[in-house]
């Protein structure tokens, strides 16, 4: 990338300098270094990397199969396999290349207290920011209840807020009735930013054995299949965030520059890439080039100028479908 192109992509996210608007998504890139195995991949192409969901105690995760392809996407039920917050802070963070990009912890827990404890451990570490995964749908005793209920979501947010001054990103679940109301409550509870959206729950069945393909029976659906859902949710959450200057990491099915630009237009300040990396590990460089090209064609100076530039149709109503 040329220097002036790089400048067009740079942005400030909750006070953190991002190389570009792209964020590598939690659970897709391990604990930060995995994709550097691929020649041509570089952390300089992304603004931040979200580490795998981390709990207080180590977790072995779910039995196989943990992933399978579905039309225009995939299901996963990893079960939050992770070595525990203490290990991540003591053994993994010291080896991460903070000179190359920003690193964000992804917090998970089964109780409000556990979330807060994990946040406390990361607060005393070089991590740049924390993303609270209140929507993890895979672990039976975790996730679901928190993310689907605005009260619980706000309580988790509040508990984490109390123990850290680092940027706190709340990752919202699409598996709920009113995502905007949830966002409003989390904002009041101290959220600095939102990640929208996490996976949608789904199932795939092997018709010969009549058993679900995924060992955990159900899994989180990601990839292009969820992109239209994600775009609408970003649009809805943006209505809540806009006046407060609270940024959104839009995500769900980004697999091309056009996808990323759609999220920016809908209101995202940064755009997450997860499943798209499995399709093409060199996707980020291509998205960056596509965004620069778009900026040039539209006479815009920086990527921030695309954010929230949605032009709604006059006749559009709220009654969907049919």
């Amino acid at each position: 990338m040329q220097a002036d192109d790089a400048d067009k992509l740079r942005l400030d996210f909750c006070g953190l300098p991002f190389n570009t608007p792209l964020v590598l998504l939690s659970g897709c890139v391990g604990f930060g270094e995995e994709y550097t195995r691929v020649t041509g991949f570089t952390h300089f192409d992304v603004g931040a990397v979200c580490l795998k969901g981390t709990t207080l105690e180590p977790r072995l995760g779910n039995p196989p199969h943990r992933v399978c392809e579905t039309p225009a996407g995939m299901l996963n039920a990893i079960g939050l396999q992770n070595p525990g917050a203490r290990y991540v802070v003591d053994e993994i963070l010291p080896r991460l290349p903070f000179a190359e990009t920003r690193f964000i912890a992804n917090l998970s827990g089964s109780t409000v207290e556990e979330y807060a404890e994990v946040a406390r451990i990361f607060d005393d570490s070089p991590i740049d920011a924390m993303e609270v995964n209140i929507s993890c749908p895979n672990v039976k005793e975790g996730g679901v209840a928190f993310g689907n209920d605005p009260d619980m979501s706000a309580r988790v947010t509040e508990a984490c807020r109390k123990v850290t001054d680092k940027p706190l990103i709340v990752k919202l679940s699409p598996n709920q009735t009113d995502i905007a109301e949830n966002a409003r409550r989390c904002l009041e509870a101290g959220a600095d930013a939102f990640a929208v959206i996490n996976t949608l729950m789904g199932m795939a069945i092997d018709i010969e054995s009549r058993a679900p393909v995924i060992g955990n029976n159900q899994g989180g659906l990601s990839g292009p299949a969820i992109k239209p859902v994600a775009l609408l949710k970003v649009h809805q959450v943006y209505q809540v965030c806009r006046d407060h200057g609270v940024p959104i990491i839009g995500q769900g099915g980004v697999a091309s520059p056009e996808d990323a630009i759609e999220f920016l237009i809908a209101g995202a300040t940064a755009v997450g890439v997860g499943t798209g990396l499995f399709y093409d590990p060199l996707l980020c460089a291509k998205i960056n080039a596509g965004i620069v090209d778009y900026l040039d064609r539209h006479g815009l100076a920086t990527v921030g100028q695309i954010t929230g530039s949605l032009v709604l149709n006059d006749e559009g109503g709220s009654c969907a479908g049919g």
Partner: protein
Amino acid sequence: MTAGLDRAHRETIFVEEAEVLSHHHLEGDQHILRVQAPETAHHAQPGQFAHIRCHPLLPMRRPLSIMRTDARKGWVEFLYKVVGEGTRLLARRVPGERINLMGPIGRPFTLLADRRQPLLVGGGVGIPPMVFLADAMRRAGGYAPFAVLGSEVPFPFRARPSAFQVPGMPEGVIGAMPLLEDWGVASRLASLQGYAGCFEGYVTGLARLWLEALPEHARAQVAVYACGPHPMLEAVALLAGEFGLPCQVSLEEFMACAVGGCAGCTVRVRTPDGPAMKRVCVDGPVFDAAAVFGTD
């Protein structure tokens, strides 16, 4: 800040737009695909695999073991069987087309300097890594591998009567893989289908006959390498354990990223610290059999 960071893993996997050079379609819906992928060909080691975009219309990749490489000419060869959508679409690709692949990936087999008489056991589409391993041993020199290959569909090659005497082989078990013969590597075939020249039984039955026929000092030179269906690997691991031989197995699991990012491909293994979930893509696909099949 960067001082002391271990960066050895970086830039070990290449993304290549590999031109299809040839594609042979064999009985049993088995296919041999040769593609031009110079980086993968140059860096690959036996046991490693490539993660292949089977068709532009199917975005998730499929892992296939590398069977042969020619580092000088820059090609890589795969042997695969059609089992579903991905492999079905792959089988349609024709010479001249380009296939996007990532490779080489994974922890390869380890050659053991004190084990000069390795036993290579390949079942079905577990044959490819054994072919690559035999090639590596022949190139390294000083090894006298013996390959036992099994299949329940016609073998993906025309068996040839072997030029090698192999201890313990029953009367009439003379069929061998021509490519290995040409390389000077002894092989024998096993199947329940009663194919001519093949041992009628399991690969482990034939391997056992060989191990029992070896003199003590020769048996002490054996290490076992295996790739194939899970039950076969379990039986091979048991056999190796019975004879007190080191054993490396190559495992399969569904994959998404194939670079260690998603933890989608894990298997449960034993470690000194207790049970752990290891990723087949980068912690494997080759594992120590005792860690996989031993009890916690």
